[in-house]
């Protein structure tokens, strides 16, 4: 990301963000609420359009890309899961496969069942999302995104809406994904996860990335006073 700016009305949300994410690495974005973390993430798959600056995926600007094509290459997981409540768990995963990738029902179901099995929920395929716990719903959402075979995965506070005892399962799944070499950008309040799993931690405050680096350095030897204050509050 190069010098990304974005405003909502008169509020400047992103004020010149630069971020480099290497292929196959996990970047955790931390920072106080309202610092622009989620907005930054949403600029990557263009759920928000930057006012200026550019976001490059594989050297190509996402701004020039067709948004629907672009989003097939980028999976996203939301805080509130956003599963489709009127469809079964299986249909949630097959729907984009069939209607975006144009796969037949049989092919789509084969992929969907395999992905659901990977997140340990193959047995929930015929149920509606409402019959699942929050942790299970989020794992289905991850399976749904993975089924599209994305090059990058974006996680927007994926565990913030979960009861504490359900957080672990989702984080473990995300860690496994990172270990398998998925390129991930993770907006999170889970500092333990960031420390353990991230290759890079970026600290955002007031629309800028104030400091970034490997987790040991960011957490144990913060350079900026703002990061030090933030860490002393959350840790």
């Amino acid at each position: 990301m190069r010098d990304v700016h974005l405003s909502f009305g008169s509020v400047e949300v992103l004020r010149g963000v630069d971020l480099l994410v290497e292929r196959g690495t996990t970047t955790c974005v931390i920072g106080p609420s309202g610092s622009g973390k989620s907005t930054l993430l949403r600029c990557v798959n263009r759920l928000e359009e930057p006012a200026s600056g550019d976001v490059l995926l594989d050297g190509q600007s996402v701004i020039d890309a067709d948004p629907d094509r672009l989003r097939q290459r980028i999976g996203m997981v939301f805080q509130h899961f956003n599963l489709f409540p009127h469809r079964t768990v299986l249909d949630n995963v097959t729907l984009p496969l069939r209607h975006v990738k144009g796969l037949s029902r049989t092919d789509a179901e084969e992929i969907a069942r395999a992905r659901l099995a990977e997140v340990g929920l193959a047995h929930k395929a015929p149920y509606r999302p409402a019959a699942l716990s929050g942790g299970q719903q989020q794992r289905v959402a991850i399976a749904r995104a993975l089924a599209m075979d994305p090059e990058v995965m974006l996680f927007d506070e994926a565990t913030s809406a979960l009861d504490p005892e359900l957080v672990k399962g989702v984080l473990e799944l995300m860690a496994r994904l990172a270990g398998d070499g998925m390129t991930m950008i993770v907006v999170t309040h889970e500092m333990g996860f960031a420390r353990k799993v991230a290759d890079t931690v970026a600290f955002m405050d007031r629309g800028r990335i104030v400091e970034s680096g490997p987790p040991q350095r960011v957490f144990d030897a913060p350079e900026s006073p703002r990061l030090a204050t933030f860490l002393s509050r959350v840790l």
Partner: protein
Amino acid sequence: MDALLDTFFDWEYIARVLPDLLTTGLINTLILAVCSALLGTVFGLILAVLGLARTRWLRWPARVYTDIFRGLPAILTILLIGQGLAQLVRPIVGTNPYPLGILALSLIAAAYLGETFRSGIQSVEKGQLEASRALGMSHPKAMRLVVIPQGIRRVLPATVNQFISLVKDSSLVYFLGLLADQRELFRIGQDLAANTGNLSPLVAAGMCYLVITVPLTHLVNHIDRRLRTGRRVAGGEHDDPIDAEPDAGNAGALASGQPRGA
């Protein structure tokens, strides 16, 4: 008291009118109501989508249409369309008042249904559209596959209110002039009531309306409940959300809270 009872419940008259009600009236009322419900639903959906459009030039006509057709008495609309356009359609459908009657009823129903659908579609959380778009669906596709189906389900009960109104308003088509075998429930009851000076045939017609409308209400409440809870999975007697949370340490605590996507 007996006189009053005879006025409304004279079984002789009821028995006399019942065969006509059941063989002719019920069918004609259903033809009018079902056809205009189908057409009205299609028009209503189009109106709802137009009403939600981003361009003012699509929203605005939908708005004006709704205001006009919702604001006029049904009988007035039916007469204006049924008589006003009669000349125009005569070469195609002859003097049969049904096509124009159905058209008028549909246009009225569409105004109400459009508003109902629009409110349902608008009530679907923004996250649903976002998630669909993030998966690579185009805006129209996301609306068609994800947002609109959910929106319509939410307003099913209100939609049925509209269908019930249609069943009742179909009686107004009688103002367009009906041949003997075109008569619907109200007209058949009304004819015998006028000939005999006794209201029992109308009471019988009223019962026939209730036979349509009351089960309709209950049927939809049933469907509504099923859509809310989700279909039962074959063999899945108890749909236990806490079974098999393999990597959560404290299964007991799960029972108390199942957070759902808000």
